[in-house]
């Protein structure tokens, strides 16, 4: 995963609430066994609607509860492959938010009024270290879990970090692990 510092540039706007991951990447594209190449199918059905416009910018500004529904990580893969590096919204669905942070796509939660102002401004700068977003005419602070921030700032591999705690995991297995079920013995 590449490290994130600041993300700067024009914003694309999708002014809808409760955008579900079935819209972000419809099911027919989940049959691929690769991790790349999903960007061209982003919002596949909506992109056919008259008046649809979603330029390939570094920042997406959208509505509340973005990424609800299916856990498919293909949704963040498609958004990232399309060119987005940060998504700004009033709220995110839990699994989607978590999936984004695993691949270095930064979810930024800001009040709806700030999201609207950023959409109007048309460009922004997201500073992860300082936890703020600046745009022509305004700025706002955002919250992020300190562990996730540390990982994103340094581009760290989650699995390697957990494997470094192998002793604690082994100790858990020795002394506290629940007995069964044993799937290999069914």
């Amino acid at each position, binding site marked *: 995963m590449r490290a994130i510092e600041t993300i700067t540039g024009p914003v694309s706007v999708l002014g809808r609430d409760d955008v579900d991951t079935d819209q972000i990447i419809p099911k027919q594209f989940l049959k691929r066994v690769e991790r790349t190449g999903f960007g061209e199918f982003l919002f596949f059905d909506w992109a056919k609607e008259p008046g649809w416009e979603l330029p390939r910018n570094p920042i997406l500004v959208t509505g509340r509860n973005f990424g609800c529904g299916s856990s498919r990580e293909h949704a963040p893969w498609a958004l990232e492959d399309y060119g987005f590096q940060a998504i700004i919204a009033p709220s995110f669905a839990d699994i989607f938010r*978590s999936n984004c942070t695993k691949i270095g796509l930064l979810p930024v939660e800001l009040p709806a009024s700030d999201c609207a102002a950023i959409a109007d401004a048309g460009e922004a700068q997201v500073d992860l270290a300082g936890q703020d977003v600046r745009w022509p005419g305004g700025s706002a602070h955002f919250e992020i879990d300190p562990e996730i921030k540390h990982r994103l700032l340094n581009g760290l591999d989650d699995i390697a970090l957990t494997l470094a705690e192998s002793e604690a995991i082994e100790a858990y297995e020795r002394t*506290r692990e629940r007995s069964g079920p044993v799937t290999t013995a069914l």
Partner: protein
Amino acid sequence: MPKSLFDKIWDAHEVAPGLLYVDLHLVHEVTSPQAFDGLRLAGRKIRRPDRTLATADHNVPTDGTPVAARIRDSLSRVQVETLERNCREFGIPVYSLGSDRQGIVHVIGPELGVTQPGMTIVCGDSHTATHGAFGALAIGIGTSEVEHVLATQCLVQAKPRSMRIRYEGSLGFGVTAKDLILATIGQMGVDGAVGHVVEYAGEAIEGLSMEGRMTVCNMTIEGGGRAGMIAPDETTFEWVIGRPGAPGEIPEEWAELRTDPDAAFDREIDVDASAISPMVTWGTTPGMVAPVTAAVPEPDSEQDERALDYMGLEAGTPIQEIRLDRVFIGSCTNSRIGDLRAAAQIVGGHKVADGVYAMVVPGSQQVKLQAEREGLHEVFTRAGFDWRGAGCSMCLGMNPDVAAPRERVASTSNRNFEGRQGRGARSHLVSPQMAAAAALTGHFVDIREWEAPQ
């Protein structure tokens, strides 16, 4: 300090702050191939194949295709074969096409008795919350997390907030677990439980069968919740004990798995269970839902207008006048034996209405076999229903079971999103009983006043 059920399970599984040990990892073909690739690239092993179980469900044709090699859609075939190959390579038990244990991952876990009270369970699927019906903490995860759990048997997870939904009173005649959860989502909204683990409690919950409890917990994600759970009781123990992966006797510690009387929750909401009617969704989120006796509501947002336009509905139309093209009884929400029995009871000796295509898709091969032992398949097929093999089927249209553009579907599944059951298809979520009655009449009916057509 008094603890909630969630607190107790969390504390028993925290390896280090923010690192949770996983007792069971369920795997399916759609969200796992990239995770196995990642392991191979990094030269990593699977930590606990004995705590991991896989099945093929999303892509599986329900026409009785006997082995993966015979799946006609080449992309689906590759995905299922990739799962089988990955499981062989890494030593994970897999129930794929041809196994009599194959089925929807959230149906076979409980059925095999590997879903048990007090466990932590994860799966690369948002409906993992289903397993919370047994008093487990069951969390849906993404593919990067699947890879992480395969490699470490742990999940990195900051502790979510807690929420309790308490139901007062009991459900009325003809009102099911499906109506209870749809009404709850209608009340709190599709993001009402975001960031929270939800415990469902109260008389109406205690009165539900295990199948009903699974239906409720299954749709927790449709209210935005991280997980849903119900404290295990005699109903739970009786259901679990003696299944292939379960203990032969009730372990003593299971008695501790309940919320202490004064435990604190970050949020509590109350729902009047006795006021809930049979419910039907009218829009494109599960929160756009109304009692069957109501009419399609006036839109009060741009989102509502868009939904009505997509659904081809006019505000003010009585729900019971909405005519249907298809009926789907199945999915991880409502495809268990109890669901099929309830639907078959409505069908009785009657016929599917002219112009309606209706299908019943058992959640697993075991459910299918049990239904056939009870003769339920004959009730359905005599009525004109299509009796299918086990899989996710038309819940999400990743297999040949899809609705055509503009076709209107009464569905026992969990999502009515645009295009979910086929591009342009219009989905209405209902209980199995309501779906069965809709199949016989060609429109929605109030199941409480149900009289079979002559």
